[in-house]
């Protein structure tokens, strides 16, 4: 029978990867659960003791935690629509026939932002958005905007860089969807109607949906993970205006030294991630 092999063979092939990933991906989670049930402060290691679910009840009633959570989702609902609108426009431009050379160039330049080291994006942000020495204010015609030091501007700046880095990704995903539309079907539709919108809505959309779902899922996960770029650019400040969930947990655990509380926050974040993933799967992959 095709594909039937002994258990021993299967284990020999799969075992190392399973053991490896369990050791680095699951064992630490179990340890995090253990830590979260303790009073565990890096500056008071002699006083580590079991306190049950106290850390969890602290987190659940902690305004700062839920504010960071809310801020994270606010970033998602601000940046994602921009990325989708801009990405869709770029994809539609690139999908039009002709101008092959410049379009190839464009596609290659789109690859650059999303491969850039996140920390470097943050550093670029610091250099380009500095109020006095930055090129951004110069390009805005000698504006005097305090990007990094003002809470709302700092948030806008994070949105800018998130959009800069990930719009190309959305554009290329959607472009891949557009190229899946059979040529004859698209041409036939264009003969029927002059409206580009109608073609997009009724002919191209079905091919774009899987890509849009993928974008939604991945941008949600990545926003919950967002750390490197923001840490480099603002460290979560000024105040807590750009302190997204991963930055907040890092601050509590490593700058506030409270590993127990941070672990409880991390486990709750993990649970929220799993619930979101389940909802997405239920809603979008019903057929599975």
């Amino acid at each position, binding site marked *: 029978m095709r*594909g*039937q*092999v002994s258990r021993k063979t*299967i284990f020999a*092939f*799969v075992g*190392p*990867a399973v053991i*490896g990933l369990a050791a*680095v*991906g699951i064992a*630490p*989670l179990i340890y*995090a659960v253990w830590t979260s049930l303790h009073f565990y402060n890096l500056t008071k290691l002699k006083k580590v003791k079991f306190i049950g679910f106290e850390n969890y009840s602290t987190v659940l009633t902690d305004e700062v935690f839920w504010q960071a959570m809310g801020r994270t989702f606010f970033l998602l609902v601000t940046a994602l629509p921009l990325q989708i609108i801009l990405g869709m426009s*770029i994809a539609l431009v690139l999908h*039009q026939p*002709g*101008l092959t050379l410049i379009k190839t*160039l*464009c596609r*290659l*330049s789109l690859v*650059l932002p*999303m*491969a*850039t*080291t*996140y*920390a*470097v994006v*943050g*550093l*670029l942000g610091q*250099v*380009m958005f500095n109020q*006095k*020495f930055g*090129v951004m*204010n*110069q390009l805005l015609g000698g504006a005097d905007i305090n990007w990094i030091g003002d809470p709302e501007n700092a948030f806008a700046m994070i949105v800018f860089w998130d959009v*800069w880095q990930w719009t190309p990704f959305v554009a*290329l995903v959607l472009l*891949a969807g557009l190229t899946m539309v059979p040529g004859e079907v698209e041409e036939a539709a264009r003969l029927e109607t002059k409206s580009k919108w109608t073609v997009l809505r009724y002919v191209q959309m079905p091919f774009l949906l899987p*890509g849009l*779902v*993928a974008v939604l899922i*991945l941008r949600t*996960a990545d926003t919950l*993970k967002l*750390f*490197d770029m923001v840490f*480099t650019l603002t460290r979560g400040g000024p105040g807590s205006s750009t302190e997204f969930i*991963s930055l907040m*947990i890092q601050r509590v655990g490593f700058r506030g030294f409270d590993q127990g509380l941070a*672990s409880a926050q*991390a*486990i709750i*974040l*993990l649970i929220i*991630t799993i619930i979101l993933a389940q909802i997405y799967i239920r809603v979008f992959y019903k057929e599975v």
Partner: protein
Amino acid sequence: MTAPRSLWSQIVLLVVIITVCVFPFYWMVTTSLKTQIVALEAPPVWLFEPTLNNYREALFEDGVLRTLINSLVVAISTTLLALILGVPAAFALARFEFRGKKDLWFWFITNRMVSPIVLALPFFLIARNLGLLDKHITLILIYLTFNLPIVIWIVTDQFRGIPYDLDEAARLEGASQFTIMRKICLPLAMPGVAVSAIFSFIFSWNELMFGLILTRTEAKTAPAMAVSFMEGYSLPYGKIMATSTLIVIPVLIFALLASKQLVRGLTMGAVK
């Protein structure tokens, strides 16, 4: 007809897109060639006499060279380890039928969703207790949490694309599954293996948070080093951008090499 006009507007649009994508890199490289005095002119200057001083100072006086070597060692080692563990698993997932295969696949792939901070906390405590802080091996291991899934994801796909008849023929000759993988399927799957290696390298090379938390001096990675330049009040923009350029150039070259597959790799976990 308005064809010529729409053609021109298309060209303008494309040029704008390219400019927006590329301009930050242009600014990064030019700033890296400025002296400290020129870099801190307000408003910024666009024309100046370039100097390579920032690169020389950053690499040899501030120790960026060593952090680049650290990053290189870690990224290459973790990629090799991910391939050694991941390729056989991918082969099994593509070729064998067994119970729980779907769940296993799902578990491998959804690892991408887990926020790294969730792993960073316990990993830090474990590494501290075992005396593994500031060691390359610690980063090499933790980077497996995202490299192993990406290798399995891409290589499984690649193995699935290889006709089964080849296996069958070899099996009739008496070849073991391991021989079939190594001698027949692996050479044909090399493009996928190469792409997954590039991904694994890029992700590891780009990573900051684990590098920041799990290293101090000995194993400090280049991104962690670049960030530490920002501490203090002198704002050494030229040096920071020189370091950034050194970090980003290899990644951009790799990304352009794998540009066709980049989107596929980044959508891991969200498309079947």
